[in-house]
């Protein structure tokens, strides 16, 4: 039986308002935008069957090669929709206005997408990579029967948490269990295997956790999120596909902050605080410029599954409850880069 947080993740959805790109409108009047509720843990290409009916009468003749953009910014289709939203909309926009294209795929920027098959391949690949990180090998995924793999994918596509909860124990992914995480997790604790070191009590001492970190850097001060400048290219976002080494020490809690800092060492220490926490605890940071702007960088915001996280949250709880179905934890971070 899945817990509340996991249900929250699976039921999370983003209202989208999808506009057909004006160059592709071949009818008069132009069709109104499509309104679609997109699952956070899903992917944009999977929504095409819902969207196309709105526009098929307006399209110019020819073959479809579908892609999406946000304010002219092409969207990477293999990133879960919720992550795209958390990353690109500093101030959440509801509904989120996107543009769909049926022609002119930007193949110099985006890798090709052949609909559901591509998304599924990407999902299974990520699952294998996560398995490799957690267990040291991909055997658990490779050993899953073809029909189980299909069913697992279908459960993700359909947002069917019950089906997923039945099937995912077959994956035998290790999980973190410590006094800070909830007992229930997506995988059965009894089926934990893998290369992680175990201490006498059978609790995992060190583990590698699959994490995908998306860092958006802003080099100017801003008071409100809606004041953040718009993104022009993906080059403004640093993507880190790197496991977090989860360290379990007696009596110490490995927090989300510890995890993020291990991936972004340049934001370590007292300097690394979310804006909220800075208000609560004024540190005597002597390293300020005369004009008051900080010399060091600052983590402004950490978002997971649409939630603005407190950095002191135990990382084990975050992983067990907020990871995506392919066992990756996607973290969107907004940082303020240090002044030069």
């Amino acid at each position: 039986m899945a817990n509340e947080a996991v249900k929250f993740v699976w039921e999370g959805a983003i209202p989208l308002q999808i506009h057909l790109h004006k160059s592709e409108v071949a009818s008069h009047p132009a069709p109104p935008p499509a309104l679609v509720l997109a699952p956070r843990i899903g992917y944009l290409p999977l929504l095409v069957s819902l969207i196309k009916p709105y526009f098929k009468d307006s399209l110019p003749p020819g073959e479809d090669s579908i892609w999406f953009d946000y304010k002219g910014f092409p969207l990477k289709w293999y990133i879960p929709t919720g992550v795209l939203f958390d990353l690109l909309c500093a101030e959440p926009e509801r509904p989120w206005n996107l543009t769909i294209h049926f022609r002119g795929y930007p193949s110099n920027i985006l890798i090709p997408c052949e609909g559901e098959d591509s998304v599924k391949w990407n999902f299974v690949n990520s699952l294998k990579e996560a398995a490799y990180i957690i267990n040291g090998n991909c055997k658990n995924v490779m050993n899953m029967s073809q029909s189980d793999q299909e069913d697992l994918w279908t459960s993700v596509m359909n947002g069917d948490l019950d089906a997923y909860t039945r099937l995912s124990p077959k994956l035998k992914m290790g999980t973190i269990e410590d006094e800070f995480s909830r007992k229930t997790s997506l995988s059965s604790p009894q089926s934990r295997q893998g290369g992680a070191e175990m201490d006498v009590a059978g609790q995992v001492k060190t583990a590698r956790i699959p994490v995908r970190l998306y860092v958006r850097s802003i080099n100017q001060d801003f008071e409100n999120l809606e004041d953040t400048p718009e993104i022009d290219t993906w080059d403004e976002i640093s993507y880190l596909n790197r496991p977090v080494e989860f360290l379990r020490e007696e009596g110490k809690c490995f927090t989300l902050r510890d995890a993020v800092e291990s991936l972004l060492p340049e934001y370590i220490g007292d300097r690394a605080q979310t804006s909220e926490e800075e208000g609560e605890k004024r540190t005597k940071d002597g390293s300020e410029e005369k004009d008051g702007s900080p010399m060091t960088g600052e983590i402004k915001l950490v978002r997971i599954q649409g939630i603005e996280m407190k950095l002191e949250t135990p990382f084990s709880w975050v992983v067990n409850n907020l990871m995506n179905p392919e066992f990756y934890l996607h973290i969107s971070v907004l940082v303020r880069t240090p002044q030069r």
Partner: protein
Amino acid sequence: MDMRKTADLFAPPMDPISDGRLTLEGFSVAARAFADKWKRHNQSFPPWSWVPLINRTLLVSNKQEEGYLSLEKIFILSSLEESPEEESLDVTPDFLDKEESIDHTILVQNVENEAHYYDFHIVYSASYGVPVLYFRGYCSDGKPLSLDVIKKDLPSSSVSLLLESKWTFITQEEHPYLNRPWFKLHPCGTEEWIKLLSQRSSSGGCQMPVELYLVSWFSVVGQVVGLRITLEMLN
């Protein structure tokens, strides 16, 4: 090099290289050693350069940068028409015979030749703990080449290696840092054949020194894309 330092370079934490994997720090060391040896022994090729990732400093005492190796704009004159007797261009210089440092086999028969350029990047995969080869081909106008066209540029031996080997398969994926589609030689199984290589080269239970990791790795992987190392690099 003392044993503890060596152990730090191979992951994780106490596993020797027989596990076939590298740490991020180990990759940096191995990469520079590889680039050095290549420069010294493979002079008909341009050298590999180390591309640092800006702002990414390794959390180690020597504060080395993270980065990847890059070899770009390798020129191949591609013939656009095929015939059974024609041999595709072999870009592997033969250094065993210093008299003839470059071996070209081009049969030009009333065909159009197109200039193709290739970029190769060796990037570290933190997930798999091994290096991964990314590559792409393009025309002089920058237009990217499809995998089918690229395969035609490869020596026939590479193509058969690709098709028959269970270790190598190529997918089109996004470059981990450049936000563009590149081709990637899949890392699955890398640590297994690295293990085989190090077992064969070691005697009396010595580990493969980390400086040779990329050389050994490339001795296999390079062949898939028609790039060869020289024997001297293995010393």
